[in-house]
């Protein structure tokens, strides 16, 4: 039992990391407090539902298509809507709240409020040293690790990735160096939304879908960013793992609800006593 909760915790942790990394990308490069990030996560899940269950494609192709479509949606939203609120915090909050309402209602109108289900792409368990590990969860972890690794390679080893880092540190300086900030913004938005959609799709393969599943993802994403430190990628990874494992362990020892309560308490305390997070700057 314990190992299953730990595996769940690890899996949750990686999902949180995907969401948080996406949110960090949008926050530090596009410059927007994207409160509708959870809705992109939700749309990722529903896209896979439509491609996989309705259209009949296999899970992994559906996953890839969904990630790509979500990325495109992100570019569209950034270019025609969010860019206006780049350094306008109040405006960004209000417009992304409007976006939450629009996206949620659109999905409710199209798919209804009832729970939907994506059949599991992998069944069965792996038995290691007497522990029964569900393949579903292992796959989720592996895919997440793959995606995060791809992102890290992109950021560290490509010129575009480095340009993104430059923009996140100082947008004007980056522009002066000849970096096309608008294009980098679009790319960051594409990646950020893709990660969120991937997280949603992977979660959707295991748990039920509802149009309102985004709020949970947003809260966890913000919690991870706070824990790990604003703008820090290693922070998001470490923070996500810690939060996920805490969730898993506390659920094992106490209950799911206590896990949420303790998680929230930890975040509140961090905000009060170390607001820059574990790895953030002052």
């Amino acid at each position, binding site marked *: 039992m314990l190992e299953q909760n730990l595996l769940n915790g690890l899996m949750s942790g990686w999902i949180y990391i995907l969401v948080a990394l996406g949110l960090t990308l949008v926050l530090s490069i596009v410059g927007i407090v994207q409160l509708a990030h959870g809705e992109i996560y939700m749309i990722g899940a529903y896209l896979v539902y439509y491609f996989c269950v309705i259209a009949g494609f296999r899970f992994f192709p559906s996953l890839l298509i969904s990630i790509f479509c979500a990325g495109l949606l992100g570019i569209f939203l950034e270019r025609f809507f969010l860019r206006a609120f780049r350094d306008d915090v109040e405006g960004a909050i209000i417009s992304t709240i409007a976006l939450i309402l629009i996206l949620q209602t659109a999905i409710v109108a199209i798919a209804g409020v009832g729970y939907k289900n994506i059949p599991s792409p992998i069944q069965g368990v792996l038995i290691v040293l007497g522990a029964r590990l569900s393949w579903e969860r292992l796959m989720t972890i592996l895919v997440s690790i793959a995606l995060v690794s791809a992102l890290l390679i992109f950021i560290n080893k490509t010129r575009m990735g480095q340009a993104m880092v430059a923009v996140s540190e100082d947008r004007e300086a980056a522009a002066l160096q000849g970096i096309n900030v608008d294009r980098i913004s679009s790319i960051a938005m594409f990646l950020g939304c893709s990660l969120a959609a991937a997280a949603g799709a992977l979660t959707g393969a295991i748990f039920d879908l509802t149009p309102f599943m985004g709020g949970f993802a947003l*809260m966890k994403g*913000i919690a991870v960013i706070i824990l790990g430190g604003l703008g820090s990628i290693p922070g998001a990874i470490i923070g996500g793992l810690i939060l996920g494992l805490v969730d898993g362990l506390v659920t094992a020892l106490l209950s799911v609800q206590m896990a949420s309560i303790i998680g929230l308490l930890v975040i509140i305390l961090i905000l009060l006593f170390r607001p820059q997070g574990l790895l953030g700057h002052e």
Partner: protein
Amino acid sequence: MSKKKLLKLLSYSFLTLVIFLLPLFIRQPYILHVLIMMGVNIILASSLRFIATSGQFSLAHAGMVSIGAYASPLLVMKQGFSFWVTFPIAGATSMIIACLIGYPFARLKGIYFTMVTLFLTEFIKLIAEQWRGLTGGVYGITGIPRPNAIIIPELLNVSFSSKVDFYYLALIMVIVTLLILYAIESSRIGMTFLSIQQSDLLAESVGVNSTGFRVLAFSIGCFFAGLDGAFYSHYLSAIAPGSFGFLLSIYAFIYMVVGGRRKFSGPIIGAIILTLIPELSRGFKEYEPFVFAGILLLVILLLREGVVSLPERLNKIIKRRFSHA
């Protein structure tokens, strides 16, 4: 008195008269209900704006409302107090909790403060869901008694068995709340809040305890949120944690922003308009969030300062047109 002022005084007096005499002409419970909820939302939005005058955007309002919404019924049902005693106590409970957490919270700036208030609302909701012994858990509390009857022999017999009685209670609550908030805001205290909002560094340098004032604004705003919650729970006679999630905090924020954050009348107008929308869109309830979103976008793109700034904006446009003539 100038003609303009006379006109203003007459129209306000007329409006007041209409509001007070309304239940004589309108007795449909449904309409009274909408008006009562309007009152609740006016207090919600105005108290949130009060906190915003000190530069803090709080998303904890839903949590603070829920504290009052639970405190009053629990004291009435478990300890037998009269509503008229528990009502102010509910407000005080929210205020005290706001004061206690306000100090560590007030040190946080801007978006960090808002985030921590968001998490606080979730935290309070989770506690309400888990502490079954106290709050009834996810199912909440039902059978909350109406406010104790007010009986003055041969003069008054208010038993709160009809919506009309609640209408007048809400009306008085709104008037008292707005009077107090306005009085504070138009005093030196209010000016000090505004100075902190604009530059707390400058305010500190001339002797203003910016943290203390922020806690003060937060506590007072939360006091009225608690009162609102207490009224709400005795009016609806049943409450559950689900009603007090961060969506309620967001709605309060939207009422404030759509109406206009910078003027006292802003949240009032915002609350009135946005309470009416769900009622008018009864026919297409699933699309109600679209309407909300649409209004939000209109405001944010065209009328940044909110609906209350419409007259000024129109004036400017008209002046510009005529100066070109």
